[in-house]
């Protein structure tokens, strides 16, 4: 029985998650479906190795349908002390409190 090297695993996983989401951001204007696939893979890796998606990268894509936010496919409004980001692909609203 070979012992797993979990620290090394999570380090590689973290790098891959960041790399994939950044790549999705680059590709969203060339191929929207492929960009979604990259986000999907990044989320799968993050879940399997229990790695957090960094805060800044979390708000790049829709939490529900996983499409990256792209100009004219999302809306940003400020309501009741919250920033509300609406995804126009699936209609999901993400609410971010303003401190």
């Amino acid at each position, binding site marked *: 029985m070979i012992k797993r090297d979990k620290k090394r*695993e999570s380090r590689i996983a973290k790098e891959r998650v960041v790399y*994939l989401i950044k*790549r999705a951001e680059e590709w969203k204007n060339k191929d929207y479906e492929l960009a979604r696939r*990259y986000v999907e*893979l990044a989320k799968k890796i993050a879940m*399997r190795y229990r790695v957090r998606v960094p805060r800044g990268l979390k708000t790049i894509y829709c939490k529900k349908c996983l499409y990256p936010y792209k100009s004219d496919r999302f809306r940003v409004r400020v309501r009741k002390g919250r920033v509300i980001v609406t995804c126009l692909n699936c209609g999901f609203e993400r609410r971010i409190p303003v401190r």
Partner: protein
Amino acid sequence: MRGRVQGVDVIARDWIGLMVEVVESPNEYEIGLKGEVVDETQNTLRIMTEKGLKIVVKKKRTFRVWYGDKIMRIKGDLISYRPEERIKKGLVMLKRAKGVRI
């Protein structure tokens, strides 16, 4: 000789975005396909070549990979897992191989 082999952990890394060339294949028309990997599944690599998107099976093929500043030959059977599974399986596989320290 036991030594530190650098870069072999490409098995556990992301293949999306790497330059890849098919070196050996039972299908002779596939040999020489070269391009950037755009997507990956358990059994196939999707390669963007000059002639368009090509889907190549991983098993029974050998790939030449440009990883960082290194060029390596990697057997497709080693990477025929789901992309998210490969981190765990790849590292265990490298540990099991004798003479390789990463």
